[in-house]
């Protein structure tokens, strides 16, 4: 029987290899799979390339992963969000590589990766430094830039409700990158707030069909980064098992 639910967060992130390319959902703090990222810190994989819209806040979630020295490169649209001091320090010390991609192109590259599209032309970045060195082509008198897809080893995504076969729904603007990141990874790992039996989500209301999901861990009361930061949390390896951050 198909059953994608794993025993816990640690089980769900087991086996992530050093050097992996990992998509992490979220826009600002909304939709970030913070508990999965903490489990990834404990799991120990390093030399990672991370795709996220931002580059982490405070010293929790993605910022904590950066602080733990696990990230070689980050691909994002906007690293300067609320309190990005961990990223800033690593970047200024040349200890992390940064690739800035416009937000819509980032989304489209991920969607292309998940959809078997080899590359696509977009007007976005034409005439800007981000188009330098890229192939271009004219469509209807406008210059378009060729962009490659992003295909990942893993995706870490936060959803609202998941069923046994991996069908997902999201909560309001926390949907953001979740559905497309689920599509673009060899192994997609989600944390859900609510877990239901197959059939517990109306087939018309499924946002991510189960085919795009591999592993599910239940986090019934996920925390937002701002809530952790307000409690003074600075996540370091093993805190999760000590119950500090959860």
């Amino acid at each position: 029987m198909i059953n994608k639910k794993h025993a816990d967060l640690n089980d769900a992130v087991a086996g992530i290899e050093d050097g992996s390319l990992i998509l992490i959902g979220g826009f600002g703090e909304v939709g970030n799979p913070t508990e999965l990222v903490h489990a990834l810190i404990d799991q120990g994989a390093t030399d990672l390339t991370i795709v996220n819209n931002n580059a982490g806040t405070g010293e929790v979630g993605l910022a904590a992963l950066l602080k733990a020295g696990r990230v070689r490169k980050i691909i994002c649209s906007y690293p300067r969000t609320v309190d990005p001091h961990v990223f800033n320090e690593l970047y200024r010390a040349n200890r992390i590589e940064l690739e800035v991609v416009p937000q819509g192109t980032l989304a489209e590259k991920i969607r292309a990766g998940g959809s078997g599209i080899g590359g696509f032309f977009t007007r976005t970045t034409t005439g800007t430094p981000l188009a330098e060195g890229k192939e271009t082509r004219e469509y209807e008198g406008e210059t378009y830039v060729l962009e490659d897809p992003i295909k990942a080893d893993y995706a870490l995504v936060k959803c609202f409700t998941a069923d046994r076969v991996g069908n997902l729904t999201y909560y309001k603007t926390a949907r953001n990158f979740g559905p497309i990141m689920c599509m673009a990874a060899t192994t997609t790992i989600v944390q859900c707030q609510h877990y239901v039996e197959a059939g517990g989500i109306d087939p018309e209301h499924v946002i991510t069909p189960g085919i795009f999901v591999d592993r599910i861990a239940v986090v019934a009361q996920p925390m937002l980064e701002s809530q952790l930061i307000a409690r003074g949390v600075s996540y370091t390896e093993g805190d999760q098992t000590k119950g500090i951050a959860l």
Partner: protein
Amino acid sequence: MTGTPEKKVGLSRNQMAWCAAQDIPDGSMVNLGIGMPEKVAEYLPADRDVFYHSENGILGFGPSPAEDSIDLELINAGKKPITEIAGTSYFHHADSFAMIRGGHIDICFLGAMQIAENGDLANWSTGAADAIPGVGGAMDLAVGAKSVVVLTDHVTKKGEPKLVERCTYPLTGEKCINRIYSNLAIIDVDANAFVVQALAPGVTLERVTELTAGQVRAGDNLHTIECPEL
């Protein structure tokens, strides 16, 4: 190779579908093509939990409904009525083919007019000048599914080989076929040969070779298919 008409030998169409069904791993995401492939679901072993995908926009569906509970707007790619199951989801065509092209479908079953020893598939057009072309989703499935499997009679109604050195009909996809279930044998396509893995009862490797127009060799574990009467 022979053009002589002969009595049908080997497996029945139901038995071919049964053989294909036995080899579907538990938990697979499976696209069933139109025609003979649709039979495969009927023979899926009870211990397998498999989700069927249909390219018109549904994942996870059950068999045809009873006559009195048909919903005309709930159909598969063969335009036949199907049913919801626990875990069904609906999505639009672009997402459906993202599943296919993006490599998310584990196995798809297709019919074939010709399969070449390099894995090329022709199944959409004879190339005849007066034929009205139409390809549907076959070309997307051929390149996208992780494993592309053909269910086909080994030879045409005229007795001509369907397994050939090079396809003469226009291609559906290049080097895309992984496995063939014919009425004579179960055959893997391995770079440049048809590798016979199992033979229908009463069928010899020599007979398969005779009825095949490309390189044939025996698999390491060549055996006879054990299959119920169907």
